[in-house]
């Protein structure tokens, strides 16, 4: 198992780390038991994600995928952000070791969770827009 240079760069110098105290949506996925938690904060301006920040407890890949995912959706329309797949995150990072694929899934889900929260706060049912966000059961690990 070895990380790409891109992964190491995003791990060593993660972009968009932190909190947004007055966030419009906050999503948290993962489980401390499996050793990964991502929390994402978004600020929405119209239909655009004007700012995004994250806090992650997890391995190098978890931190790097969080960082890359925030980069990829920052300034994007919500509908485009929702199209971001874990595959796109992985590709942007020049790949991940097989055991670490789930981290990129987590990043994808964290964004969706934050957007869901945003809609909920606005009184809109997120389900038809964002879809189901699978829990930890989607990964192989036994919690």
């Amino acid at each position, binding site marked *: 198992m070895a990380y790409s240079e891109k992964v190491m760069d995003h791990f060593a110098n993660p972009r968009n780390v932190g909190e947004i105290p007055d966030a419009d949506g906050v999503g948290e996925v993962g489980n401390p*038991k499996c050793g990964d938690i991502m929390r994402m904060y978004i600020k929405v301006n119209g239909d655009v994600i004007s700012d995004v920040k994250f806090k992650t407890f997890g391995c190098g890949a978890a931190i790097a995928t969080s960082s890359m995912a925030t980069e990829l959706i920052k300034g994007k329309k919500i509908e485009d952000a929702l199209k971001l797949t874990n595959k796109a995150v992985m590709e942007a990072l020049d790949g991940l070791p097989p055991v670490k694929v789930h981290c990129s899934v987590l990043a994808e889900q964290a964004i969706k969770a934050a957007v869901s929260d945003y809609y909920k706060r606005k009184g809109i049912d997120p389900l038809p827009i964002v879809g189901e966000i699978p829990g930890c059961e989607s990964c192989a690990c036994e919690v």
Partner: protein
Amino acid sequence: MGRFVYADNAATTPVSKAVLEAMEPFYTQYYGNPSSLYSVGRAAKKPLELAREKVAQCLGAKPNEIYFTSGGSEGDNWAIKGVAHEQSKKGKKHIITSKFEHHAVLHSCEALEREGFEVTYLDVHENGLVRPEELEAAIREDTALVTIMYANNEIGTIQPIPEIGAICKKHGVIFHTDAVQAVGHVHINVKEQNIDILSLSAHKFHGPKGIGAIYIRSGIRCPNLIDGGAQERGRRAGTENVASIVGMSVALEEACKNIDANAQRLSKMRDRLIDGLLKIERSRVNGDRVKRLPGNVNMCFEGIEGESLLLSLDLQGICVSSGSACTSGSLDPSHVLLAIGLPHEIAHGSLRITLSDQNTEEDIDYILEVLPPIIERLRSMSPLWEE
């Protein structure tokens, strides 16, 4: 990057110069098959038997009780599966081990469970120590084998081996110990400690990888794991890895010669490191502080995850581990830390620093300088950490 500090000596160690020099002639000069009768064969046979004597001496065993293997995993598999199969002929199909053995032991036990053996996994409690009275209580009429590691590879706790040996002797049960982490680091005498079978691996004491030995007390039946040629008195087939065997014996001799001096120096360094790191808030030491290997530091820092910690340290030139090397790549937290009762989220944040005689006080200074700010930074990024 300033300094380079290798402090993962429980994972593996560099081969010392003297060891490498002892090995080299066997690749190009005394390359003969030691089973061969002619000159270059005999030139390989003698050092092979000398190496056997050295290894035997370091363990308090007889040379004809030592068999060379390809490492600790082979030795553990051979001992456990061999004794179990032999004893099962007498209807004995129960094995006692502990919850935090190395996977070479645990997975061998699991393989036997699939064959119908029953395994008792002894608790190791908060301090990471098996309790002899609990072991004794677990022994049954049909107990075939007790296998308890000498020292744990993650948290370094040293088990009460002489007590366990005495109990096994009293009950007539065969006692195997995985001493991979202990050999060369603590005093071992298989006769005094009533050990029947012991496995060791060279690369944990500056010998080469891929070579080890097993001590089988004479008279103990333990059928072959690897059948074939008549090498190792018919008990372990395969052309002998003479170079590595000689290298191992030189490394072990060196380690045993300096065992007390090394232990004293390393445990001082270890304690200074632990005390220094305990100043970090919400940190803890894993495993008994006294009954532990001289070079082993194992700590947890709440709110952070181990891999990101070790990657950060690597970026600063420090090589350490989180969990054990052979399970990295796995997402599960260390079974060792769970066995001593840590909750999953804390077990994920463990760090193992293992020192060898090649480490210096300056290495400790450097770790103590570099580690706290890394933890602070990772905690600042962690959703689990709220000050």
